[in-house]
């Protein structure tokens, strides 16, 4: 219970843990008032999630608020009794998907939620409650349910997916169109839902790291780092600086491969084939650099609790430096060609605009947020690991369009290459792995990592026996899918692939 003089929120920093009983526990109304005030004062919700409470039938709700300007994270919690709570979404739209997730997982209905639909089309974790009162045993079919509809003469609907026309993950897109113009896009996901949070609840043991590595395969290093960092925080920290440097190198290589690939894909979607084919290949060069580190192009096996799985000797460092220089030249050549071509710019500029105030309202993260002029980057605002020692400048652009989302990637490519080069010249000496200690009981830890798509958030709670009782994962795509839907408004439907690619969000990272 909170005494009247206790602070509203408990402040901690990234990759730190706190005792559960120190987190201020408010009644629901106070909790919502504090959260709403914090969000309106410029804090962001990094995670908002439920956890089964000790008392049967009750649910704890935790929120992690990121205060980017002063590098702090704020925690508070409440408890919900019964099957519903008043929704905060009408006044705090960035919570809309979090509340839908709580509804789906815990059968708690956020009353007054304007868009209360399933997130992943699965049964409630609580066998007694379902937010939509669906009878137990009734099949829950993905993409089946109410979709927003525009009616009127000449208005038509276009449905795409779940299976797409290329080698793409499944998702369902429903467009309301007037001729070519998109009035509204609704996105239904959940097809990739494979039950990772559910499995982590049952204390996954041997598979934990493998789940982290496959949350979003293109973000293996990012999620594995966030996963290990949260466990290390629960065990009381981790100090192998050499491993932190190697993790940083691997994370930036992952960013490079994906950003270069995305620029190629943007070129491909407007039929500018030179850059499309060069970047497609150069992306492979960066993936092969990850494989030089750890044998896997996606960084499998590189990050592990307590450090990293592979070291680099002088010969390997030299090899990586040589490859990096060659890939840097090739990338600059291919990307400058892209941005120097007027017909390319004509297709990128003023398309798919997401204005800063809307990006802030939706809670956007990563390059998509920075391309809307928002200053947020975990490496800069909430540095952990090697980023505490090496400060990366923020790369932003303020035109808020497809060009901006491409150009921010190019700025970040240059920063990442510089970072890796600097690290390679002076990797700290020492062990690459220390045996992590046992997890401490009754604690909560928050771990944030700036993956190439944006903020990866892992929050883990231990019980009195030191077992993980909840492991919450928030992929950047969870924040950003709504941004894509918004950016498509009043655009031509034929520009959807291009606009979609400029965000390049993860289906599996969202679906877990």
């Amino acid at each position, binding site marked *: 219970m909170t005494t009247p003089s206790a602070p509203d929120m408990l402040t901690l920093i990234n990759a730190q843990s706190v005792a559960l009983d120190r987190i201020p526990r408010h009644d629901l109304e106070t909790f919502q008032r504090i959260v709403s005030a914090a969000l309106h004062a410029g804090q962001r919700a990094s995670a908002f999630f439920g956890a089964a409470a000790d008392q049967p039938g009750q649910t704890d709700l935790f929120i992690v608020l990121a205060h980017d300007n002063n590098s702090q994270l704020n925690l508070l919690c409440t408890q919900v009794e019964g099957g519903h709570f008043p929704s905060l979404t009408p006044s705090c739209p960035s919570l809309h998907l979090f509340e839908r997730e709580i509804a789906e997982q815990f059968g708690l209905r956020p009353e007054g939620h304007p868009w209360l639909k399933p997130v992943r089309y699965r049964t409630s974790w609580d066998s007694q409650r379902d937010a939509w009162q669906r009878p137990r045993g009734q099949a829950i079919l993905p993409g089946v349910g109410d979709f927003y509809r525009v009616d009127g003469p000449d208005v038509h609907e276009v449905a795409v997916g779940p299976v797409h026309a290329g080698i793409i993950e499944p998702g369902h897109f429903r467009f309301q169109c007037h001729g070519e113009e998109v009035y509204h896009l609704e996105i239904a996901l959940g097809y990739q839902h494979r039950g990772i949070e559910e499995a982590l609840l049952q204390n996954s043991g041997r598979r934990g790291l493998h789940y982290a590595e496959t949350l979003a395969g293109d973000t293996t290093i990012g999620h594995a780092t966030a996963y290990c960092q949260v466990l290390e925080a629960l065990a009381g920290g981790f100090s192998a600086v050499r491993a932190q440097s190697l993790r940083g190198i691997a994370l930036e290589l992952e960013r490079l491969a994906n950003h270069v690939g995305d620029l190629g894909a943007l070129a491909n979607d407007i039929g500018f084939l030179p850059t499309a084919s060069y970047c497609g290949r150069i*992306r492979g060069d960066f993936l092969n650099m990850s494989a030089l580190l750890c044998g896997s192009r996606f960084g499998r096996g590189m990050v592990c609790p307590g450090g990293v799985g592979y070291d680099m000797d002088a010969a390997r460092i030299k090899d990586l430096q040589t490859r990096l220089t060659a890939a840097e030249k090739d990338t600059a050549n291919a990307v400058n060609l892209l941005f120097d071509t007027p017909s390319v710019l004509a297709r990128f500029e003023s398309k798919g605009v997401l204005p800063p105030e809307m990006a802030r309202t939706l809670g956007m993260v990563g390059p998509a947020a920075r391309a809307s002029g928002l200053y947020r980057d975990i490496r800069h605002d909430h540095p952990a690991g090697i980023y505490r020692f090496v400060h990366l400048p923020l790369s932003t652009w303020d035109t808020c369009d497809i060009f901006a989302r491409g150009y921010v990637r190019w700025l970040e490519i240059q920063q990442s290459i510089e970072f890796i080069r600097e690290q390679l010249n002076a990797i700290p000496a020492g062990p690459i792995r220390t045996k992590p200690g046992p997890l401490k009981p009754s604690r909560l830890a928050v771990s944030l990592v700036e993956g190439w798509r944006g903020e990866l958030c892992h929050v883990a709670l231990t019980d009195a026996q030191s077992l993980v009782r909840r492991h919450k994962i928030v992929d950047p795509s969870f924040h950003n899918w709504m941004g894509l839907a918004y950016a498509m408004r009043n655009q031509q439907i034929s520009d959807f692939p291009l606009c979609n690619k400029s965000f390049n969000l993860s289906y599996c990272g969202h679906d877990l």
Partner: protein
Amino acid sequence: MIKITLARLHQKHRTIRYPDAPPPPLPDRLRGRPLFDAARCQGSCQLCAESCPTGAIEFTADHKPRVDLGKCLFCNDCVQACPQHAIRHSNDYRLAASRREELVVEEGQALQWAHELGKDLKRLLGRSLKLRQVSAGGCNACEADVNVLGTVGWDLGRFGIQFVASPRHADGVLITGPVTQNMQSALMDTYRAVPNPKIVIAVGACAIAGGPFVDHAEVNNGVTNLLPVDLFIPGCPPHPLTILDGLLRLLGRVKD
């Protein structure tokens, strides 16, 4: 135009010459099939089997290790768990097989690499194989490295293999992911929409046996129990060369 030409000169011709020339060098740390050193492994502790995240390692009655490459994530867990340091990974990229049971190999047993399509199918598909790709619950890594085969570095098109935008245009489906409950009906619809005769290719540990998600209520354990599979390509994810090798074996373009 001049800039495009200059860029073209800078970027050079980069398509690999494989299979007419040796494949490009593979990373020295590439993790292929786990190999056991019989002199060191007594088969008594079985800590490797215990550590395996997917239960891919078993021991035979005479204490010989047997690895299911369909389940294997090609991770380091068994290597690190072995107190005798008896396990290492092979660097051989050739892993694809035609039958599920051929992926279960005892120590010392050679892999039975995938064989080519029957005469009739090969006559039909040998020079033009159009595939529909269905991603059914994976992590997008297998998808990414299938996609890579379409880049200029690999140029899958030169073998007549192409990924098409409609099942009606396809000769088969290439499946990734463990087949989530939420993707099962879309996958089955896609398969049914492909005209006969058709083939099925399972790429990656998930599609073959469920991968790290094996036995989750939310997934099927791969496509093996749902559809008749003609080609299994193990890996988590498989290296692009492993995928290409499997496809070329199926078409009879690579034999050894």
